[in-house]
């Protein structure tokens, strides 16, 4: 493969559409983020409906694309490559983004670069915090994994055996009647409530080796909550009157302690000198505090991705696309079908030496 000189080309446009957000980002080849626009799909009730999310992405795509180009102050023909989130994620959402990316690439006659969504979360974290070779905790609505670079790839040292951390918090929040608002995800609402309590309710704590399981914790937290609301239960079953804040606090403390223990195990194992927190749940201040304590105990530098790059965004796709493109990696259109289960340890990352 031919390495392309930096000076030959300048900008990469990245399209992110793996779940509920449709985002377009533009970065230049040295790592400056010129635009990062996004539109979120907000379900009327319940979680993400994949078909509705895909429809939303199709509707907002033209305006988000235009906004991104306007913000960056460049014309479409000045771009050098089009990157898109090829997986993992929800099929209908991913396909919408991929279709737009293919159309743009063909129309503008530009190379297409398929990017792994999880790798993008790590790379944007490294770019925005200056971390060099970190142990990364990537926690979001769809993923919870502890990963670090070893010989050619990001290896997974620990992960959830069932549901993701963000998913656990979201479902609990919905069961508790909390609603996501624009700019205030359910996770943030739980965090705010949790700050009002100091009362720890015993809940399951499930760490298995370097992996963890959150599904039992979710069930237990939800059941605890329902017992409070169910006045028909005999007194001996209704043990205590916990407030919603108490349950939120306990859920957070248990879930984060588990994630942190796993991260600490991986840190002791890999002996990395940096810890990076990325993904949607990275916005949680309590999780940040807990991880920073662990990092300092192991003499490691702790960094957390800025909030606007914590959730799914186009800039991370653009930047990772840039890295791949600079190393001669492109995705011909016939090979650009989306990969719903594309694990981070299946991706070669030749840009790391």
């Amino acid at each position, binding site marked *: 493969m031919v390495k392309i000189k930096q000076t030959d080309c300048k900008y990469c446009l990245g399209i992110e559409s793996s779940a509920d957000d449709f985002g377009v980002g533009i970065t230049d080849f040295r790592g400056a983020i010129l635009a990062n626009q996004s539109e979120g799909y907000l379900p009327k009730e319940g979680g993400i409906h994949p078909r509705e999310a895909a429809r939303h992405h199709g509707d907002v795509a033209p305006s988000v694309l235009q906004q991104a180009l306007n913000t960056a102050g460049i014309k479409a023909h000045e771009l050098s490559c089009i990157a898109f989130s090829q997986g993992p994620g929800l099929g209908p959402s991913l396909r919408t983004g991929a279709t737009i990316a293919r159309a743009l690439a063909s129309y503008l006659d530009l190379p297409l670069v398929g990017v792994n969504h999880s790798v993008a979360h790590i790379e944007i974290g490294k770019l925005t915090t200056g971390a060099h070779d970190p142990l990364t905790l990537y926690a979001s609505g769809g993923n919870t994994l502890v990963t670090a670079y070893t010989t050619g790839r990001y290896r*997974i040292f620990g992960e959830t055996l069932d549901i993701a951390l963000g998913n656990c918090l979201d479902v609990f929040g919905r069961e508790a009647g909390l609603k996501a608002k624009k700019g205030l995800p359910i996770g943030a609402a739980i965090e705010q409530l949790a700050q009002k309590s100091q009362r720890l309710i015993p809940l399951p704590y499930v760490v298995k080796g370097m992996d963890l399981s959150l599904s039992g914790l979710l069930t237990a937290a939800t059941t605890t909550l329902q017992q409070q609301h169910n006045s028909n239960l005999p007194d001996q079953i209704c043990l205590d009157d916990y407030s919603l804040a108490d349950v939120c606090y306990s859920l957070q403390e248990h879930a984060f302690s588990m994630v942190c223990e796993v991260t600490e195990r991986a840190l002791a194992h890999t002996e990395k000198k940096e810890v990076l927190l990325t993904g949607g749940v990275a916005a949680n201040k309590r999780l940040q505090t807990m991880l920073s304590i662990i990092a300092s105990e192991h003499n490691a530098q702790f960094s957390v991705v800025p909030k606007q790059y914590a959730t799914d965004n186009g800039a991370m796709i653009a930047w990772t696309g840039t890295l791949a493109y600079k190393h001669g990696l492109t995705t011909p259109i016939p090979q650009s079908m989306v990969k719903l289960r594309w694990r981070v340890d299946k991706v070669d990352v030749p840009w790391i030496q």
Partner: protein
Amino acid sequence: MDTVDKTPHTHLLKKGAEASLFLTQWHGKDAVLKIRLPKSYRPPTLDQQIRRYRTIHEPQLMHHAKTAGVPTPIIYMINVPQSTIIMQHINGQQIKTILNKLDPPPRHVLCQKIGQSIAHLHNHNLIHGDLTTSNMIQTPNGKIYFIDFGLGEKNNELEAQGVDLHLFKRALQSTHFNFWEDCLTNVLCGYTQIRGIELSKKVYEKIHQIERRGRYVEERKP
């Protein structure tokens, strides 16, 4: 109780994530002092509960492992309030280091022996909970010692046995990524030798089920 305080922590062997290991002396013998230090990142109640539970259960499980025929260090003393355990020091090499140096034929033999040991544990309803090649030590006379039962449990369910093996598979994938498949095949071969084809098959089906539960995993493909 006082003995622990008087024991000199002569030499730090390993600062793990969960506990620190010191090389020390116990009545003239080399011993390992395992301390589970408080973790300030989690709430004190939860922290205490976890450390207490693991300090009590680890020695119990190590004892049971011996009756299952799997060598583990001898426990000399336990101090629950301080979360410390003093145990025999095992002279030997971690399987992690040995595996990387061996040629394929002796490596296959070693992996089969490991599989047999895991099968013995499972036959006695013991779940190790953190099977990795760093938690196994081979002594010069060829015995394989299992250590670090802190996440273990007594459980006779297929589910627990499946998770135990699944975790070992993941550990092999991340530490021995060049020849993990080869290792796993031989581990499972040794496992089947002890537990029989019928039961082993059930466990392997369980592993598959467990893997399908994960998010975004290849195994989930229909």
